[in-house]
C-alpha cells in the first residue's frame, strides 16, 4: 500500500488527447520524497537540455507535495514546474490554496502535460474521470473569474480550478497561474500553460489518502497546534517588521504599518530609497483605505492561519490577495495611494501576471520613455500621471500590444529586443529574472550567496529561519536565542551571538565565508524540504521561528509515510534532489558566470571577498569551481548516472570534475 502519496500521476498528451493514469515507482519517495524532489527527477529523466520553454516537448507539471492532503497542517502547496521561457532553466513557482490537495483526493500526485492542444481547452478531473474540454468561450477571460465560470459550467461548486488569464494565453514570460487565494507567479509557468493552449485545470476528488500511522501524526499535529496557538497569542518581539512576528506568510494584510518596507526598499525601477516616506498622514490614509478594502481574512487548505484576504473595494470586482503584492505596484509606480493598489491588483490577478516582476517591468518602460528610448509614438494614448501610465502599460503587456509585446518578455529580454541602449536599464535581474527591489549600502555576505546561487532565482523564497539583520545589543541577542529551537546545531547560535550590525563581527566579513556557507545550506535545506513535502514556507522555511523545523520534519514524514527518517537521512534526500536540480541547470548551461547579484545591489562591494564567498560555498556544497557537482558528491548521493551524463555532454571543463580544480 502507498502511504501519504497516491502513487499515480496523470499523464496528458494535449496533441492527441491521450490521457493515462500511470503508477509511479514507490522507490522515488525514498530517494526524492515528492513535490519538487520528484519533479526534478522527472525533468532530469524526460526533458533534455535542447528543449526550450515553448517546444511541445517541454512538460508542465502540476505537483502536490508528499504530505499534501494528509493531516499535517499547511501542506497545501501546488508546484507548477516547467522550463522557464525567461531563464531557460527549471522553474517551479508555487501556490497555496486548495488545488493540490483536491488533486490527491482525486487520486493523483501530479498532472503532467506534454505537447500542445490544437485550440484553447480546459481539463476536468473528477476522480477517475478525466476530460479535455473546449475552452474557446473562455478566451480572454480573467484568471480569477474563469475559476467561477468553470465551477458554474460544470455545476461543481467544490471543484478547485487553476487558471491563466490573458497574459498566459499570450505567452507572457511573467504570466502566472491563479487559483483561489493563491498564485504561482514567478518565471512564467502561466506562459507555458498558455502556449500549451490550456486555460485551466479543474479538479474534484473524493478518494482516500492512506496514512501510515494516523494516530501518531495527530499527536505531532497536536504539538504543532499548541505552538501555533502560543505564537498567535505571543508574537515575536525584537524584530524589524511586525509582519514577520507570527507564523504563516508575512502578515501584510493584518498590518498597515509598512515603514520598514517603504523606507528600506527602492522605488521606481528598483532605483531610489525614500527614507522619509513613512509618516502619520500616510499611516492614517493607508489605514482607511486598507480597512475599507479588506472584507475577510482567509486561509489555504487545512491551515488555521489567515494570510490572505478577500478584497472588496468600491466598484472593483472582488478578488483575493496576500502578502507583498500590496506594495509592489506602489514601489514601481512611485504612487503613495493604497486605493491605486486595490485597483491595479484586480487587473493584475485577472490578467494573471506576476505582481513581483511586473511592476518593475512597467517602471522600466517608464524609464525608457523618460530616457527617449521609447518615443511619444510608442506611448501614444498613454496618460501622463504615474498611476494612469501603469494601468495603460499593464493593458499593453497583457495584450502584447505595441511596446507591450516587448514588456511581456520581462526586463532582460525586452531590453535586448528594444536595443538602443535599453540594456543599460536592465540593472536588477539575475539569470534574466527580476529581483527584489532592494538597493543597500554594505555587502551582506549571506544575501550575496542566497541571491547568487539558489535555484529558485528569487530571494523572497530563499530567506528563512536566520534573522535578516544582526541584533544591536547583547540583551536582544539573548532574547532571540533563548527559545531558538529551530537551529539544526548549537553552533549557529554561536555564529549569531557574534554577529553585530556594525564594527567588529559585522558585514561584510562576518559571518565568515565558511559560516555563511553553512547558514545558506541550512536555509536551502529547509526550503527544499518544504517544497518536497508541499509545506507553505510561511509555516516552515521562510518563517523566523516556525512550527515546522529540521527537528520535527522527520516525525511528520515518518508518521504519514512509514519511512524511517532521521534528520541526517532527510537531509541527504533533499541534498540529492538539490544536486540533481543543480546538475539539471548546469546541463542547460548555468554555471559560476551566472551567479552574480545585480552590480548595484550594494553600494560597497568587495570583489575578492565575493569570489571567496562563492568558492567557499561551492567547496562546502561539493561543487567544482564552476558550481557543478563533483564526481565524488554525485557518487555520495547515488547520482553516478548524473555524473556520466554531465561527462558525456562535456559539462565539465577538461578534468574539472573535482572541487580542487
Amino acid at each position: 500500500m502507498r502511504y501519504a502519496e497516491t502513487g499515480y500521476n496523470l499523464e496528458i498528451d494535449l496533441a492527441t488527447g491521450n490521457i493515462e493514469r500511470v503508477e509511479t515507482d514507490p522507490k522515488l519517495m525514498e530517494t526524492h520524497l515528492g513535490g519538487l524532489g520528484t519533479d526534478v527527477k522527472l525533468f532530469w529523466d524526460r526533458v533534455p537540455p535542447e528543449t526550450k520553454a515553448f517546444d511541445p516537448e517541454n512538460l508542465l507539471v502540476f505537483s502536490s507535495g508528499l504530505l499534501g492532503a494528509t493531516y499535517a497542517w499547511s501542506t497545501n502547496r501546488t508546484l507548477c514546474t516547467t522550463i522557464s521561457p525567461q531563464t531557460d532553466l527549471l522553474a517551479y513557482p508555487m501556490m497555496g490554496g486548495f488545488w493540490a490537495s483536491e488533486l490527491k483526493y482525486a487520486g493523483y500526485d501530479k498532472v503532467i502535460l506534454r505537447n500542445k492542444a490544437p485550440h484553447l481547452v480546459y481539463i476536468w478531473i473528477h476522480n477517475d474521470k478525466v476530460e479535455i474540454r473546449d475552452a474557446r468561450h473562455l478566451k480572454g477571460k480573467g484568471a480569477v473569474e474563469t475559476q467561477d465560470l468553470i465551477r458554474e459550467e460544470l455545476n461543481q461548486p467544490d471543484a478547485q480550478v487553476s487558471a491563466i488569464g490573458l497574459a498566459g494565453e499570450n505567452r507572457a514570460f511573467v504570466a502566472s497561474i491563479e487559483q483561489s487565494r493563491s498564485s504561482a507567479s514567478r518565471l512564467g509557468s502561466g506562459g507555458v500553460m498558455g502556449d500549451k493552449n490550456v486555460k485551466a485545470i479543474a479538479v474534484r476528488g473524493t478518494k482516500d489518502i492512506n496514512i501510515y500511522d494516523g494516530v501518531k501524526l495527530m499527536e505531532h499535529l497536536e504539538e504543532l497546534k499548541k505552538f501555533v496557538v502560543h505564537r498567535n497569542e505571543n508574537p515575536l518581539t525584537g524584530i524589524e517588521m511586525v509582519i514577520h512576528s507570527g507564523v504563516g506568510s508575512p502578515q501584510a494584510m493584518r498590518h498597515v504599518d509598512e515603514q520598514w518596507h517603504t523606507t528600506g526598499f527602492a522605488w521606481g525601477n528598483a532605483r531610489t530609497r525614500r527614507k522619509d516616506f513613512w509618516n502619520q498622514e500616510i499611516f492614517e490614509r493607508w489605514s482607511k483605505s486598507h480597512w475599507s478594502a479588506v472584507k475577510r481574512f482567509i486561509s489555504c487548505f487545512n491551515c488555521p492561519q489567515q494570510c490572505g484576504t478577500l478584497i472588496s473595494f468600491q466598484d472593483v470586482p472582488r478578488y483575493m490577495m496576500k502578502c507583498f503584492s500590496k506594495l509592489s505596484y506602489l514601489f514601481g509606480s512611485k504612487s503613495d495611494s493604497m486605493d491605486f493598489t486595490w485597483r491595479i491588483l484586480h487587473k493584475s490577478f485577472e490578467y494573471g501576471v506576476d505582481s513581483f516582476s511586473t511592476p518593475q517591468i512597467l517602471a522600466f518602460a517608464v524609464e525608457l520613455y523618460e530616457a527617449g528610448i521609447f518615443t511619444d509614438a510608442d506611448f501614444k494614448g498613454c496618460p501622463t500621471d504615474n498611476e494612469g501610465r501603469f494601468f495603460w502599460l499593464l493593458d499593453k503587456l497583457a495584450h502584447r500590444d505595441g511596446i507591450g509585446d516587448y514588456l511581456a518578455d520581462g526586463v532582460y529580454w525586452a531590453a535586448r529586443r528594444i536595443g538602443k541602449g535599453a540594456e543599460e536599464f536592465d540593472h536588477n535581474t539575475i539569470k534574466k529574472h527580476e529581483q527584489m527591489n532592494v538597493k543597500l549600502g554594505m555587502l551582506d555576505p549571506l544575501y550575496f550567496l542566497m541571491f547568487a546561487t539558489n535555484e529558485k532565482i528569487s530571494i523572497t523564497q530563499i530567506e528563512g529561519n536566520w534573522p535578516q539583520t544582526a541584533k544591536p545589543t547583547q540583551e536582544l541577542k539573548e532574547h532571540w536565542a533563548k527559545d531558538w529551537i529551530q537551529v539544526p546545531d548549537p553552533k549557529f547560535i554561536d555564529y549569531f551571538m557574534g554577529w553585530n550590525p556594525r564594527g567588529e563581527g559585522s558585514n561584510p566579513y562576518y559571518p565568515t565565508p565558511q559560516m555563511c556557507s553553512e547558514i545558506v545550506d541550512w536555509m536551502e535545506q529547509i526550503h527544499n524540504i518544504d517544497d518536497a513535502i508541499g509545506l507553505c514556507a510561511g509555516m516552515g522555511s521562510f518563517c523566523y521561528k516556525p512550527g515546522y523545523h529540521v527537528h520535527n520534519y522527520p516525525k511528520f514524514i515518518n508518521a504519514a509515510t512509514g519511512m524511517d527518517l532521521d534528520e541526517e537521512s532527510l537531509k541527504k534526500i533533499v541534498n540529492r534532489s538539490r544536486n540533481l536540480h543543480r546538475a539539471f541547470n548546469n546541463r542547460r548551461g548555468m554555471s559560476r558566470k551566472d551567479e552574480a547579484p545585480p552590480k548595484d545591489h550594494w553600494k560597497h562591494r568587495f570583489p575578492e571577498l565575493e569570489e571567496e564567498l562563492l568558492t567557499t560555498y561551492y567547496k562546502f556544497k561539493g561543487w567544482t569551481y564552476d558550481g557543478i557537482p563533483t564526481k565524488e558528491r554525485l557518487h555520495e548521493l547515488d547520482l553516478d548516472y548524473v555524473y556520466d551524463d554531465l561527462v558525456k555532454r562535456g559539462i565539465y571543463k577538461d578534468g574539472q570534475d573535482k572541487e580542487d580544480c
Partner: protein
Amino acid sequence: MAKIKKIVKSIKIDADKCNGCRACEVACAGFHATPKYSICNPARARIKVVTYRRKDIWFPVFAGEYTPAGCVGRDSYIIDGKEYADCDLCRASCPTRDRFKEPDSGLPLRCDMCESDPPLPEPMCVSICINNVLTYVEKEEEVEEEENVSDMEIGLRALANTHGMDKLLETVARMIEKD
C-alpha cells in the same frame, strides 16, 4: 412519549470567523475512520465548509438526518445582501446531491458529536478550529424521549428506502448463505 431531562450537545457556529480552511472537515473524517486517522479524506466528513469565495460566503454545515426525497422547491435566502441557496444551508443527506454521503458506498453520514469511548472533551471539529468558529455547548433540556438510532440503522434504512425492505432482507439472507 415521556419527557426526560437530557444533556443536549450543541455547537455554536460563528460563521463570520470562518476562514474556509476546512481543517474541521479533515479532522472529522479522520476521527470517524476505522482505524482512527488511517485515511485522510474530507469527502467523508460530517461537516462541510460551504464556500463561495468572491461572494464572501464561508460557513460550516453539519450533517443532519438522511432524507429519502429532495425538496419540491429550491428556495433561496438573501441575508445582508448575500444570496444563499437553501440547499447550501441544509444539513440533510439527500438523494439530490453528494453531500454527507460516503463517497464510495453512497451511504448517508450524520454528525454524532464524536461520541466515543472514552469520550472526547469536545467534538474534533471544535478542538481543531483554533479560530473559534465552533464552540461546544452542553445544555440541559427537557425533551421527548426518543429512540437512539445507530449509524448502521441509518444506513440500512437508507438502503431499505432505496431498494425496499424485502429486497434488503433477501440480499442479507443470500449473503448469510454464501458465508
